[in-house]
């Protein structure tokens, strides 16, 4: 199947006063229609920047895209005008973010904002009454209790979980093909997080929506996504089906990340921690960016390491797997 989103060799730098900060380095990522991908990594790994850059949400300057292409449904997005990108973000790609309050205007009623958003997404083709019925329909789809009453509420009258539901409704009203969810549950309590994750899994399934869920929490991603890409210091180091990530993680960083997680239902005596800190991305190493913290690093790690297939739909960027199956054989 042709990929819905095809990011190839995307590199992005920030020009800072101290030098050039290499935030994203030659990242390639494909997403099939209807696929739910988790993009996982720690602070500063570039997971948010990657998806924002792909849809023109990173201000240029200070950012600068130095190479690569981003295709949505075969159409190149890099180089499109701001206006064209806004159109795509409204209709084909929808985004939700960590803090829902920041994305709702506190002085307008929830319903007004929903109706405005829906009309803007349609380019003004939808009338007020129709937009309202779509909005109420969407609020019902995201299981907001009492949609009629909440329609007239102001954002501060809603709880965090309800606001996130409203934003999801707003995002999905235009029937996008792709949903980008950037840490959508990080600000929420555990029981509310579980509700929102259930909702997202349900919507992805029902609407045939493709999704990229950005998270620092492998446990959260595991509940919604079928595939995970692990990022480290601006590169994707491993890309695999969710089961493989937990059962047979290949990259030493992924292994380290999993070993660092305490488990709620298993007694764990010691957690492994990853020594060292992120490399300085003003002067990134030419080879594997994790080599400086990796116990298994050796001479070959100083040269650039591409992603290689090590199993069905399982790619990893690590010199330990140099003699694994060739790239072509892996795609099933």
């Amino acid at each position: 199947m042709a990929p819905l989103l095809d990011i190839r060799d995307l590199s992005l730098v920030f020009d800072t006063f101290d030098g050039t900060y290499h935030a994203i380095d030659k990242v390639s990522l494909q997403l099939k229609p209807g696929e739910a991908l988790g993009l996982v990594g720690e602070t500063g790994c570039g997971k948010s920047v990657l998806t924002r850059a792909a849809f023109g949400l990173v201000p240029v300057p200070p950012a600068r895209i130095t190479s690569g292409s981003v295709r949505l449904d075969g159409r190149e997005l890099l180089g499109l005008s701001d206006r064209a990108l806004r159109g795509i973000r409204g209709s084909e790609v929808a985004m939700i973010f960590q803090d829902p309050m920041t994305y709702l205007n506190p002085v307008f009623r929830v319903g007004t904002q929903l109706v405005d958003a829906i009309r803007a997404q349609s380019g003004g083709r939808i009338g007020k009454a129709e937009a309202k019925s779509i909005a109420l329909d969407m609020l019902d789809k995201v299981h907001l209790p009492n949609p009629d009453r909440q329609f007239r509420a102001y954002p501060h009258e809603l709880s965090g979980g309800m606001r996130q539901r409203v934003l999801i409704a707003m995002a999905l009203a235009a029937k996008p093909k792709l949903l980008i969810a950037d840490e959508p549950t990080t600000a929420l309590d555990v029981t509310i997080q579980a509700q929102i994750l259930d909702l997202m899994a349900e919507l992805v399934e029902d609407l045939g929506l493709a999704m990229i869920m950005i998270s620092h929490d492998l446990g959260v991603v595991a509940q919604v996504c079928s595939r995970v890409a692990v990022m480290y210091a601006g590169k994707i180091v491993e890309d695999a089906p969710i089961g493989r990530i937990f059962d047979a993680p290949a990259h030493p960083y992924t292994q380290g990340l999993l070993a660092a997680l305490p488990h709620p239902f298993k007694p764990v005596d010691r957690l492994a921690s990853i020594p060292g800190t992120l490399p300085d991305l003003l002067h990134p190493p030419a080879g594997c960016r994790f080599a400086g913290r990796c116990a298994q690093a050796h001479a070959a790690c100083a040269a650039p390491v591409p992603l290689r297939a090590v199993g069905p739909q399982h790619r990893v960027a690590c010199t330990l797997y140099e003699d694994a199956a060739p790239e072509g054989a892996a795609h099933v």
Partner: protein
Amino acid sequence: MSETSDAMLAIRDLKVHFPLANGQVVRAVDGVSLTLRPGETVGLVGESGSGKTTVGKTALRLVPATDGEIRIGELDVLNASGRDLRRLRRKAQIIFQDPHSSLNPRMTIRRAVAEGLILNTSLRGRALREKVSETLIAMGLPPQFHDRFPHELSGGQKQRVCIARALVLDPDLLVLDEPTSALDVSVQAQILGVLKDLRAERPSLTQLFISHNLAVIRFLCQRVAVMYLGKIVEEGPVEQVFSDPRHPYTRALLSAVPVPEAGRRPDRTRLTGDIPSPTAVPKGCAFHTRCPVARKGLCDTTPPPRVAAGGGHAALCHFAGEMQTT
């Protein structure tokens, strides 16, 4: 230590209410009793608005209590004054969630750690310097860091400074208020390792570990208390509570925890609705508005009894006895 009580921290029927400008009252903590034995690590778990942080801060008198009693060793915290309060500062310390905002941006970390010693001991000059350096090095911060300012350190390093600042006074009780929530997973693992090592190094140190993260509680604590809207609804040994939860809220909480395993979990208890505001705590059992097993005419009128389940495990629920692990 007093002979009459073997508790390091004893909280009896603590109430902390905050009046709001509009006349409403936030019942942040509404009748909490909790006892920590010397050397014990107890987890206090709950969601936002449960009052868990308020309990921790009140125990150190950073927040005034409305009613109740708190003892640290034989010291009466709520009625302590002058000299007693100074002793309290040496005996009990706290570590906060955000290591960045809990360090004064204008102080080097050496100065930050020295602050407690300057205030509470007669240590000065060389001896002070050495004690500070020693503590920072023990926390994994080599000397070249000691003259840096907080903004030049990473989050994990800053949290190590905060731990050093608390431990330099050799406290008997350490309150940890979500100390790893603001940190990345790999850094969290380091800090959790530091905290677990403390138990071996200072066997008498008692820790109250406040967190919303059940996996972290499981890793670090021996006992756990679950809070909901200002009350402890279940408490007991960690393994017993996690494997055989008696309160429906604990069940829901446990089944909502994201587990680092593939696939969705089958044993799901999903709660509907949101946590009520602590200004309007529901009558009867505070949880009845979201409870899957609540019975009309009982749960919404009668406060639930405390039902013991053996081994120090108890839950505040009308149906705690009937709850069986499936």
